[in-house]
């Protein structure tokens, strides 16, 4: 009796294992053909915006850029049902690692590619085209009850955030004598964040140089909660987080030397919100770009008609000035990183025009 039961159980197990391998074989076979077939098809199909592109595109990289690529992938796939786009979020560095290993065709990046990453790509024989796709306004926020910090200069922010400020600058009136005698509560992103790198570079003159005694979180929503809950708080993050919480937070105007400017789509587009507007990138493999579906995706990404998608997810589009410059870059197949070679003070149009 017992043995019978047991052998029945073994039969079940054997059957289910067998089933698994049959299913897996089918599944594996299925994907193989679906990735091979499209290339044959697309060879005949003319590219350019048509709804008949097919093939798969693998994207990975920055989680900051992710929402833009997700939105583009979603709409691109809706327009071209034969295509399959996946987007991962293993971070800008992790994305480049896969990209330079030939595993992805497109890499999302919230910063410029670094020298060692360029070297890795070169070694693997992967040429890339650097494409700015959107802009982000780094936003300094305070509690709505804060009526003194309407506008701040970079120097004031530096007084607050410099490594030397640690344990010494703890009161608002130390930042500016006109500010009230109130304790300073600082909130900011953690050291792994691209926003942190950018802010410290601009404010303290060196990437990663920051005081350490502030409330840091890798989740920007924590910073939002912190500033919402404390009238004496100040924090910074990407514009999307301010936009989603604009009724419970106040953005500080930034005086970059030419008067106070609030962060907004308009001020980023007209270039007046400096120095806190930063470009976001995708890096596309030059070899992959020759394939019609990848080219179609990049064209779709840069199409001015799709700029509303960028705004929808909380970022600032490239705008009328930059879009043609970037499109020309793709058209000419200009490889290499213009931003990595550019001098510190060059503006985005200047860099792209090179």
């Amino acid at each position, binding site marked *: 009796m017992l043995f019978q039961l047991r052998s029945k159980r073994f039969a079940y197990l054997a059957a289910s294992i067998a089933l698994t391998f049959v299913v897996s074989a089918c599944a594996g076979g299925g994907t193989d053909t679906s990735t091979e077939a499209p290339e044959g098809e697309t060879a005949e199909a003319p590219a350019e915006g048509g709804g008949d592109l097919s093939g798969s595109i*693998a994207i990975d990289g920055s*989680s900051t850029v992710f929402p833009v690529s997700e939105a583009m992938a979603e709409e691109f796939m809706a327009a071209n049902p034969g295509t399959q786009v996946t*987007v991962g979020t293993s971070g800008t560095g992790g994305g480049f690692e*896969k990209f330079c290993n030939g595993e992805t065709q497109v890499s999302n990046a919230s910063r410029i590619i670094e020298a060692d990453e360029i070297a890795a790509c070169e070694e693997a024989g992967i040429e890339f085209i650097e494409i700015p796709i959107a802009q982000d306004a780094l936003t300094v926020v305070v509690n709505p009850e804060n009526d003194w910090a309407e506008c701040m200069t970079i120097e004031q922010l530096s007084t607050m955030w410099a490594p030397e400020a640690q344990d010494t600058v703890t009161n608002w009136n130390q930042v500016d004598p006109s500010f009230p005698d109130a304790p300073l509560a600082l909130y900011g992103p953690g050291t792994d964040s691209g926003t942190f790198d950018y802010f410290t570079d601009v404010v303290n003159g060196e990437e990663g140089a920051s005081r350490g005694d502030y409330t840091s979180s890798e989740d*920007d929503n924590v910073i939002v909660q912190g500033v919402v809950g404390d009238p004496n708080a100040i924090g910074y993050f990407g514009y999307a987080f301010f936009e989603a919480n604009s009724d419970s937070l106040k953005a500080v105007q930034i005086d970059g030397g030419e008067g106070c400017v609030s962060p907004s789509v308009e001020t980023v587009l007209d270039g007046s919100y400096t120095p806190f507007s930063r470009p976001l990138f995708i890096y596309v493999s030059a070899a992959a770009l020759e394939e019609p579906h990848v080219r179609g995706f990049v064209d779709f990404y840069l199409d001015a008609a799709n700029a509303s998608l960028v705004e929808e997810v909380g970022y600032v589009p490239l705008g009328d000035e930059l879009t043609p410059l970037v499109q020309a870059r793709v058209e000419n197949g200009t490889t290499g990183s213009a931003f990595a070679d550019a001098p510190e003070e060059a503006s985005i149009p200047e860099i792209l025009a090179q």
Partner: protein
Amino acid sequence: MTATDPNAFSQSSSAEQHFSSDLSGRYRLDNIFRIASWVATVTALVVLAFLLIDVLIDGIPRLDWQFITSFPSRSAERAGILAPLVGTIWLLFVTALFAFPIGVGAGIFLEEFAGDNLFARILEVNIGNLAAVPSIIYGLLGLAVFVRVFLPITGGRTVFSAGLTLALLILPVIIVATREALRAVPSSLRQAGMALGATRWQTVREHVLPQAFPGILTGTILALSRAIGETAPLIVIGAQTFVPFVPSFRGTGFSALPIQIFNWVGRPQAEFHVNAAAGIIVLMIVLVAMNATAIYLRNRFQAEKM
């Protein structure tokens, strides 16, 4: 102090007094300890209940058929959890398929067959150490071995590779649980079996293993529950966040529930946070379904033993 105590009575009367006066004191101590352990239990339950209620309030209104059957999207209302849900179920299946037989087999070998020699002791120490290795290390191991070396078999960054990596991750836990369960079976059972002329394997198969099976299952379930909550090794293996199709066993491009939930939690828009709560509920349902299956199986095995 006691030396100058004028109330120092004879030995026996002092002992009597001591005993009777302390009775209520000991009861009080008893009560204090009871209350302390009650508070400990209730604290754990209250925290759990608070978390559950918070997630349920946020997530239940969002949880509908559309949510279960849709792919990710930039708009929170249209986004769904189908790809990560299927990915997680795939992963569970592959992980259990490999970790369970290998883990239980190794546990049986070490407990019943290996004896007490140097080799077994070295294995034992290493398995104990492996159980404490951070999961990201397993992710890197999986990347090097399953994604790169076994590329022709696993297909690279696939559900198959990720499932194998998670299987490795929980293998030590299953082995340790199996050994504990086997150790709890009285050795008189083994002696009786062998005294009647059964071989070691017959004794293990017919008597020891059925006794230990419920314990083994419990350990496996705990291990699998850990596996489905893992994110770090999956990201290393290559799990994606935006997967607009149902992932297959050996196809590239898969996602898992914890990754999707993590992505939604980190988004600026509050609607995505609601999606995350609904995603957590889906994850909990998968977990509860899995545990229920195991408890059902365990009860059947227990009933069978009678």
